[in-house]
């Protein structure tokens, strides 16, 4: 370390960290009781799983190197998800399926790795345009829910308020909701047998700023029709990805990476990292 020149930013001794030669994109689920993990909890768990599985993850330079793992739009604490995404930079190439199995085996049960692809295109985060959500509402009445959903869908705008880190915010919860439907089913809390019957709301919501979350939609249903479920809902993100206009559902955001593998998307060649 330099001791005489405080204007220069000190750099650690030793060689610079190994460069990234491959990026893998990971779809993972948070299920059951692990839905209570926060985004920070998950990033610590992933970093440890990566070490346990001996994944050759790349590190940033500097005095406190960080593993090169980036996360896209994490579901809120308490919300389960079948479709969370992260990207890992590697210093040597790995087989995606093997990494999927190794990482899954090193994470606690409930944080499950579903799918891994080699990143061959840019901007995964930009591709996550919308999410499909499912809300299970134990003790709610189907008739009331149906009326509330009809009123909500008929409205142009439903303003809701939510406390955020920046204070109380007021915004429209209607425009971002692309589809919203009511059905019936059973509750399925962590590790349980199917519970009593409940109302299920299924919706596709466009990602917007500020984000419209499933609980905002519930707030909106209360505002338009006094629809108020007796207990907190069980919320699951079923999918997220680019909006497929033909189905009105999110498509698989890995499709483009898989197409690139097959040589189907020459336009993405610029983004290919490494020399596989």
């Amino acid at each position, binding site marked *: 370390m330099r001791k*005489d020149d405080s204007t220069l930013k000190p750099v650690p001794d030793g060689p610079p960290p190994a460069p990234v030669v491959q990026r893998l994109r990971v779809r993972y689920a948070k299920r059951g*009781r692990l839905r*209570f993990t926060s985004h920070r909890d998950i990033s*610590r*768990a992933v*970093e440890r799983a990566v*070490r346990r599985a001996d994944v050759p993850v790349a590190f940033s330079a500097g*005095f*406190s190197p960080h593993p090169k793992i980036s996360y896209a739009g994490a579901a809120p604490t308490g919300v389960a998800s079948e479709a969370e995404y992260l990207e890992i930079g590697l210093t040597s190439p790995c087989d995606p399926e093997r990494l999927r199995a190794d990482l899954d085996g090193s994470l606690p049960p409930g944080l499950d790795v579903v799918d891994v692809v080699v990143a061959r295109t840019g901007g995964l985060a930009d591709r996550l345009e919308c999410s499909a959500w499912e809300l299970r509402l134990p003790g709610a009445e189907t008739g009331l829910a149906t009326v509330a959903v009809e009123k909500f869908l008929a409205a142009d705008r439903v303003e809701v308020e939510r406390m955020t880190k920046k204070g109380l915010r007021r915004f429209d919860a209607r425009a971002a909701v692309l589809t919203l439907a009511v059905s019936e089913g059973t509750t399925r809390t962590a590790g349980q047998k199917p519970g009593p019957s409940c109302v299920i709301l299924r919706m596709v919501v466009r990602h917007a700023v500020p984000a419209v979350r499933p609980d905002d939609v519930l707030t909106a249903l209360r505002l338009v029709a006094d629809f108020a479920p007796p207990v*907190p809902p069980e919320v699951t993100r079923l999918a997220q990805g680019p909006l497929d206009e033909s189905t009105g559902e999110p498509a698989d955001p890995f499709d483009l990476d898989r197409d690139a593998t097959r040589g189907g998307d020459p336009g993405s060649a610029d983004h290919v990292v490494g020399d596989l």
Partner: protein
Amino acid sequence: MSVESLFPRLEALLPKVQKPIQYVGGELNSTVKDWDEATVRWALMYPDAYEVGLPNQGVQILYEILNEMPETLAERTYAVWPDLEALMRSEGLPQFTVDGHRPVRAFDVLGLSFATELGYTNMLTALDLAGIPLRADERGDDDPIVLAGGHAAFNPEPIADFLDAAVLGDGEQIAIAISEVIREWKSEGSPGGRNEVLMRLAGSGGVYVPKFYDVEYHADGRIKRVAPNRPGVPWRVNKHTVMDLDEWPYPKKPLVPLAETVHERFSVEIFRGCTRGCRFCQAGMITRPVRERSISTIGDMVEVGLKESGFSEVGLLSLSSADHSEIAEVAKGLADRYEGTQTGLSLPSTRVDAFNIDLANEFSRNGRRSGLTFAPEGGSERMRKVINKMVTEEDLIRTVTAAYGQGWRQVKLYFMCGLPTETDEDVLGIADLAKKVIKAGREVTGSRDIRCTVSIGGFVPKPHTPFQWAAQCDDETVDRRLHALKMALRGDREYGKAIGFRYHDGKPSIVEGLLSRGDRRVGAAILAVWADGGRFDGWSEHFSFERWLRCAAEAGIDVDWYTTREREEKEVLPWDHLDAGLDREWLWQDWQDAVNDVEVEDCRWTPCYDCGVCPTMGTEIQIGPTGKKLLPLTVV
């Protein structure tokens, strides 16, 4: 009878509380054994928040050892925050374990690990939420045996009314022995109920059952005597000492939490015990003699622990880690092994005089060189002689100069305020010391870009130390001295900006003092504080000095009498019947030596000075060097 999981009921409450993940369990390496296949079931509690309790080594070690026994299972429970406590009360949800989410009252033993006395009110919350009567004498055969361990259990008298039993010292072997006694008793059909199993435990000589002892008092309030109130109960209860740490290489599979905790690393105890003889240090007195873990076992434990956990930092724990006879070889071996793997090594508790720059360089080779911490404890040479912290000013300046010269920019210095015989000048001496440190650092680096932080806390006299007879300094005096020190540091034009100052005021120390040296009568104050809403006394945002003073007064407890009163040599102390092995006459002589500034050497390197522990407990010093090498890992 099978026990249903409480999780479905808990789950409905979790969306309404802060950091719900701390209550769900499922940590890597956690264990949920089949309830019906076990005969002896332990609920282990660290009576503080999950984020503090989860990393606790003692609980993790016992959890693993007990779960390795075929007919025993162990689960963990922690103090719930007030937000969840309120919901549990309104929903009638009892205290649960985080592993199987089973009700704590269904277990055979509730084992509490008390690292500090400030967890006592949290114990009462847990008992109450569990539906276990707070007072031991009101418990029936269906209630668990409430058992305390940890350093605070060396004087469990203030919580004697709430405990069925306490154990002193290392828990590994005695936990197994207790499990065995309970298994036998249950297999016989639990003859004689609760009293019988407690008698069997007490009769073994290694378990203290408070209700089998009566305390008599003099008219002036001092204790007259403590005596067994039935045959078959020993007059004195001994501490437990594990002699071969290599035979007990736990934790093997460290618990890896999902929630953020206070220590995010894999910790290996490199030795137990300390004979440096610092007179304020209860840990050093009650954990004698020194027993080292060998370099090869340390190396194996680090390898397995990192592999099992995925932690990126290793902490080498002990009371004074640089004193391990082969610390240089351990440091170099680990730094070699993990070079280039982004694995950090840390060495908490380093003495100024045991520190050397080669060691520090090894420890920072794979990581940051951000800060070093030393604990001179006393601000003046005289003060350090009183407490037997044999560190000279020259030692300190030489060490920090070397550290600054090698690229460290930040040095932390720990001190105590309120030590016996302390004067205002002793405390102001800390400011002079800090300034000299900065001056020396600027000279050696030629830069003003170096810092020193002074961290200072109030001294609390503890049982089983030479200061067990001392008057605790009152909080007003401590606060006045801390204020004067702050002014002396902040007001300095030349050095003030380079010196940071962190301190705790003297009030929590008074409560800690009351709970540390209290007797059975103090239990009434603890109960009153708890009933008044006292929780999480170790947390400044929850601690209320006003509540403690008010409730203690209402319970008829004179806090000054327990804290700031000096004791006579012959006064019976509440813990005199609990044997840490220390010879009472030696402790008294050491107390007299303290007042006369007489120092005592470490018995590892000088002849035995007859503290009494080894002959009383049948133990001996176990140190290296072994001459073995820490092998690098083979590359897979």
